[in-house]
């Protein structure tokens, strides 16, 4: 190990150090949120700066186990953005419930370090390590409101199914390792290429592929491996739900891209079919169940399943030969993260008073009570529907373009995707109906929200509109990121 090995890892190290620093600061000033928050944001700021600096020069470390390329940089920046926004939204929700903000921030940063590790992994073991590091704090976060039975129930479900799927995934990795004799992603790709060329798909490889696909399908909550999502999402404290629906999802997709696109690239024809089916199933089932939800958090949980389906369309388009599919997937990931976090932030802001549920009725009359919050929520929802000129629209258009280019069965997937988007409009706009077109049954007072929440909401707003109106710069980043993978 030399200095040159550590340098590419500097952002990850910075995040871990910052998380540790937050814990120390919390010991020094117990129960005070300001010092912990300042430490958090300074630490994340440094990490972001390091990401940009190290990203300028692509490099390998630890004999090719970890790579910094355009893909790593793109995912890292996105992940840090997600965590910053989540922590901005959290205090308003956590403080009235006496939940400790410092531990929340520290856990989130540990998870972040895991996700960042995934983004740069070019080794199967490191990939698994990053995955576990990312999801373990997630179990704790899901059960963060430890006196709340629902939260605990959700956390247990999340934990059981999560570890189960990790085991399946690891089992699949073992097969791949056993067949190829290497854990290096480049090596696996080369070996598989030779193997498939000469002998086709062996039974062991097929089993390994199936196990890996099942494992990642659990992690991204693709149908029919989604059952843990609604309970885990609804039970978790709202800021955690926003986090759970974005960061682990982006991380898991980064893992899919590193593993399936890079390592399993030679057998892409085999997994392409599976992902086409999973995509169709995931978006349709996710939307159909979301249609029937009366609880906004649960509705957003199911709709996040549908969004997973849309992103998988991009992956399927890539597997059918269109690199735009990957670009679209990455663009969608960014757009989805910000608009979804924005929507969850509004839900969390409404729940600032203890005991307020996230049922649709909570939203009745919001447009009159707190017009700005209502307008912002409408914007995020419209973006989730995919109405221009928002991030969600351009992201959908990107993926549809890739699917149409791929042609064949992917064209049908594109049509299915827009029909799903139309169905999704129904349940997203129902929230708008409650906010603006219905009067509340009992008059709730307008709340005053902390400054951090507004900062976060405006950042999410600017990103949601900016990614829709001026997609140019992000397109360049996702193109670089996608070409770094290939």
């Amino acid at each position, binding site marked *: 190990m030399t200095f040159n090995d550590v340098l590419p890892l500097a952002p990850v190290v910075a995040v871990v150090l910052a998380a540790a620093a937050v814990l120390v600061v919390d010991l020094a000033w117990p129960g005070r949120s300001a010092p912990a928050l300042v430490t958090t944001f300074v630490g994340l700021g440094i990490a972001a700066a390091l990401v940009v600096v190290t990203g300028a020069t692509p490099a390998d470390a630890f004999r090719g186990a970890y790579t910094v390329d355009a893909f790593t940089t793109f995912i890292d920046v996105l992940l840090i953005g997600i965590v910053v926004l989540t922590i901005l939204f959290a205090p308003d929700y956590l403080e009235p419930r006496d939940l400790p903000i410092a531990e929340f921030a520290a856990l989130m940063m540990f998870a972040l370090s895991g996700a960042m590790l995934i983004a740069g992994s070019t080794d199967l073991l490191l990939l698994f390590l990053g995955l576990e590091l990312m999801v373990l704090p997630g179990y704790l976060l899901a059960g963060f409101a430890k006196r709340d039975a629902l939260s605990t129930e959700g956390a247990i479900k999340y934990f059981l199914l999560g570890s189960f799927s990790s085991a399946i995934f690891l089992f699949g990795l073992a097969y791949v390792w056993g067949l190829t004799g290497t854990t290096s992603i480049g090596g696996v790709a080369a070996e598989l290429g030779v193997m498939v060329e000469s002998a086709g798909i062996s039974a062991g490889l097929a089993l390994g592929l199936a196990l890996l696909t099942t494992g990642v399908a659990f992690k991204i909550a693709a149908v029919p491996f989604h059952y843990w999502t609604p309970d885990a999402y609804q039970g978790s404290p709202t800021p955690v739900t926003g986090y759970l629906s974005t960061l682990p999802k982006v991380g898991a997709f980064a893992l899919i891209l590193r593993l399936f696109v890079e390592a399993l690239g030679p057998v892409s024809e085999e997994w392409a079919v599976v992902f086409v089916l999973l995509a169709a199933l995931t978006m349709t089932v996710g939307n159909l169940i979301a249609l029937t939800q009366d609880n906004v958090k649960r509705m957003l949980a199911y709709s996040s399943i549908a969004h997973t389906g849309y992103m998988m369309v991009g992956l399927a388009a890539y597997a059918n030969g269109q690199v735009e599919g990957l670009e679209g997937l990455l663009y969608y990931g960014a757009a989805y993260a910000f608009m979804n976090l924005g929507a969850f932030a509004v839900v969390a802001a409404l729940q600032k008073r203890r005991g307020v549920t996230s049922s649709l009725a909570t939203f009745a009359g919001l447009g009159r009570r707190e017009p700005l919050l209502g307008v912002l929520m409408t914007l995020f929802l419209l973006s989730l529907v995919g109405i*221009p*000129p928002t991030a969600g629209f351009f992201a959908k258009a990107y993926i549809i*373009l890739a699917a149409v280019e791929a042609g064949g069965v992917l064209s049908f997937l594109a049509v299915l995707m827009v029909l799903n988007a139309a169905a999704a409009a129904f349940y997203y706009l129902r929230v708008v109906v409650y906010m603006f*077109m219905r009067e509340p049954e009992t008059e709730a007072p307008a709340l005053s929200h902390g400054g951090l929440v507004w900062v976060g909401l405006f950042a999410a707003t600017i990103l949601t509109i900016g990614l829709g109106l001026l997609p140019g710069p992000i397109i360049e980043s996702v193109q670089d990121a996608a070409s770094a993978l290939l």
Partner: protein
Amino acid sequence: MTITDLPIISIITFLPLAGAILIAFVPRSSVNAVRAIALGTALLTFVVSLFPLIGYLPDRPGFQYVETVDWIPVFGIQYKVGVDGMSLALVVLTTTLTWISILASLRPITHRVKEFMISFLILEVGMIGVFVALDMFLFYIFWEIVLVPMYLIIGIWGGANRIYATIKFVLYTLVGSLLMLVAILATAYTFADGHGGSFVGAFDYEELRAYAGTGGFVEGFQLLAFLAFFLAFAIKVPMWPFHTWLPDAHVEAPTAGSVILAGILLKLGGYGMIRFSLPLFPDAAHTFAPLIIVLSLIAIIYGAVVALVQPDLKKLVAYSSVSHMGFVTLGIFVFTEQGMNGAIVQMVAHGLITGALFLLVGVIYERTHDRTIAKMGGLSKPVPVFAAVLGFFVFASAGLPGLAGFVGEFLVLLGAFDYSPWVAAVAAFCMILGAGYLLWMFQRAAFGDVSDFLRSLGSHLTDMRPVEVLTLVPLATLTVVFGLLPGLLLVLISGTVDGVLSDVAGGGAVNLAFWR
């Protein structure tokens, strides 16, 4: 610097947005300031929208006042706007109806005035944008932007059943338009594929049109893309059997919403067919034309017959729209000069006349809080001015010669006669039916003894206020002007009509039996 150096089209498009932003900063309590800014913006936009009319050269083919800025160069997406005769006519129709609608809503809209005015001005941005966009991506964006404010206008300020109506409106429109998005992207990709994978110009309407002229889009692709575009436009028009959102939306919408819905939003469909469906997919247009003509005839008959039995005044006008817009689609798809001219004139005329009828329904509803025709009767005695104006527009809508509605329908009939005398005969029969339900309604509402219901209202039943008259005078004037001097409009749109027809003439019906 002359007027042509200014980005005049962009100014017209985004002036209402500036007004909306301004209103957002006015405190909620200053209702009158909000109203003044909204009305002022709409009037200013109207005045500015007249300028391109002055310098427009109808003899020059193609688009004028074109502005092009690269927007998303990777995919060849541009901010490109410009007008030809048809879009100019529809832009001016939009700006006219918008200020009239805002003027007409000053009194009826009393709660959430600020939000209403902002929605309305953003709606105007979307509508103008649809008519001036020359980039498919940009067009789609404006097309969808229209949806959101109208959703709010019906949903917040509408009648008792407004939420059902507005969601139905949105979902119907969204299904059509999202499929159109797939078609737009597929068209762009096909273009790029034919140009060595380069997306330069792939969303540029003029480039695509030229490419279509060279036979770039193969028949199989044309059929699918045409259907996707057609569905979006047919839902907007709306053509039978995609019309079921319309009566609900119209009945529940506030007056101004109905005026814009009938006056402009329905025209987006007809505009899209002429602008995109025909020139881009001429073979498919020929293939489906017989089917669409049959659907148009069904719409004409169905709208008229259903209007005949409507007990509700507003619903009657709504169904009459289905019938009248049937003439538009009929005129478009017979592919003759008179038919196309007639379709565009009919769009303008229907915008003016039906817009006015909805305003009149709003006037009477404000006083009676009832729209049942059977409860009216003898309106001409207590409210003679109202009855007279209603009479004028009823005759205009029924297609009285000398008024704009006649010109459009007559030209369409001429064009249809060229295509097939039988089609013309059926359509002409329905004009009689149209006269029937309109005049019958007018007779029941305006003549005879004053009904008990109206009597019970007593002094609440006042005649039209000067402001209300003011909203209708421009519409009446234009109805007469275009009725007597249709040449004004025909000269303006001649370039559009010739261009589209010559593009369509290059296509031929696809033999479906051999296509698989």
